[in-house]
């Protein structure tokens, strides 16, 4: 009887741990995690960084859901990311469950790019296999991805909510 109670208690604690671990939280701007080693830096792109999830696969929107993007337009990348579980920002303008606000931009017909909002209230990003940075193409801090210098990524698509984590690389979204 004692042993049964002990196991129930252990199970309860484990369940609580899983539930707490599954909660979304906001990331701080900690580029050293992404820039510290070649393996992490070169194999994780803007989609990995914005979702704060290290996969070492240069993650693509929709690939984890089995329906990767089919065109390099705002609507096509949007559909693929939503298939992965990334949610469009509600009309209220804030993410409902402490998710991290992220933003999608597109260089029409050429490529896409994502930004993320950090706990310091500023935006940061990781252009492909380069280092993560808080600066835009003109070396200015990014107060808004809508007004940042984005080079050829001229189309601003919109904002999304991603279940991130306080720990770098440990975001909760399923991307691949």
């Amino acid at each position, binding site marked *: 009887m004692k*042993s*049964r109670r002990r*196991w129930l208690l252990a199970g309860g604690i484990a369940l609580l741990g899983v539930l707490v671990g599954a909660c979304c939280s906001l990331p701080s701007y900690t580029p050293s995690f992404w*820039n510290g080693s*070649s*393996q992490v830096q*070169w*194999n994780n*792109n*803007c*989609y990995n960084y914005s979702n704060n999830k290290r*996969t*070492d*696969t*240069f993650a*693509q*929107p929709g690939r984890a859901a089995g329906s990767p993007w089919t065109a*390099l337009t705002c609507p096509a*990348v949007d559909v693929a990311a939503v298939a992965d579980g990334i949610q469009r920002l509600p009309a209220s303008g804030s993410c409902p469950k402490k998710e991290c606000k992220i933003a999608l931009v597109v*260089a029409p*017909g*050429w*490529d*896409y*790019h*994502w930004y993320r909002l950090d706990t310091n209230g500023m935006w940061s990003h*990781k*252009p*492909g*296999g*380069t*280092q*993560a*940075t808080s*600066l835009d*193409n003109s070396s200015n801090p990014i107060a808004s991805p809508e007004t940042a210098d*984005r*080079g*050829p*990524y001229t189309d601003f698509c919109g904002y999304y909510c991603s279940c991130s984590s306080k720990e770098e690389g440990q975001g909760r979204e399923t991307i*691949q």
Partner: protein
Amino acid sequence: MKPFSDPRIASGRQRPRRMTRLFPIALPVAMLALLACATNGSAAQDAESGDGLQVTVMIYSGRPDPTFTIDDEATFEELRGALSAAERADFEGETVIPSILGYKGVRVENRSGVAGLPAVFLVYDGAIEVRDRGRRFLADPDRRLERSLIQEATERDVFGDDERAPGIIREDLGGPSGPVS
């Protein structure tokens, strides 16, 4: 049919014990399965590395960058010559590859250990970053090494049906005098 013919199951007393017996086995198995999933991605990447030098033109942010392999001795020799002739340079930043959107340089990885060439070198905007046992910076006057690598990429048609990439690179390299057609 007697649904609860086994008295141990019918009483419901043995079930938790059976589960507790299974728990110490199931937990390590589940952890091993998770570990296998986590390492899958890097294993797949490693399998892609072949002989020779893997060259990546760093131009996209979301899409995978175009890559090609240099595997002929003549080009190895040219690269050895270019790197050994390059003069040491002072470089203030952490890396020569800028964190910008658009074209950002060329990365060359020597995963198969071609003799006389460093493990990695990166080239952009007149500077070469060599990573071997440590890191050092060299000069690339007139972006000669960078232009020749881009020329190689163009000849191998690594940009495929991306008609925009050569123009973006040409603009960065300094106009129509660049080698990208």
